[in-house]
């Protein structure tokens, strides 16, 4: 599964922070493109295989939370 985060909404550092937080539950491979950051998700921990959707949603929420933190710190 490939997740894409628009750079104007999710700074790459925010996505990296989410990868750091969820790195033990799956493999995340980050690729930076012109306008977006792509994350390939695989090898989800078998204990969480039944909750893959929730894992991805939680990952997205974490990245968004970090993006908001970064934005507020900058302003």
């Amino acid at each position: 599964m490939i997740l894409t985060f628009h750079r104007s909404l999710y700074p790459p550092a925010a996505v990296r922070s989410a990868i750091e937080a969820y790195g033990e539950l799956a493999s995340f491979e980050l690729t930076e493109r012109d306008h977006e950051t792509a994350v390939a998700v695989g090898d989800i921990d078998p204990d969480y295989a039944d909750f893959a959707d929730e894992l991805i949603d939680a990952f997205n929420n974490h990245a968004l939370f970090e993006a908001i933190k970064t934005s507020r710190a900058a302003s």
Partner: protein
Amino acid sequence: MTDTGSSPEPDVASFTYALDDRSLGFVLDEELYPLEAIYGACYLFVDRAWVFLDRPADRRVQVRLRLKSDGADQDLHALAGEFCNEVLNQVLRSKISESTKTIREYYMARAFFGDDTRASIDALLAELDAEELDDDPLEIEVPWDTGAAT
């Protein structure tokens, strides 16, 4: 807001959104709803819903809300309504904050760096000293005035 779902009157600007079983999405125009306001609403909703943002076009932000637990569609609609109300609230807060920024900065600067802070305290102390010298307006006799204590 842009209609992303099936609406009987797609040309009418209204609060409509695409809906599937547990999630919905709608597009906000950054000209009307600045990103900071959208972020502010997201910040308040990340504990209640799965939130994902995307940019389908320049100056447009697509918000996708997904229920964290199984719920009826009504809950999803209510959640979307609350979210959009919160975005408006954040826009208003931002505008008020911006319009009062100068006066707030002035008061903070005056409180911390004003030269007349010391003078104000001195004036208050002097006023208290002056009051102590005044006669008692209630004219209650006290022993040290009458010499009864001797």
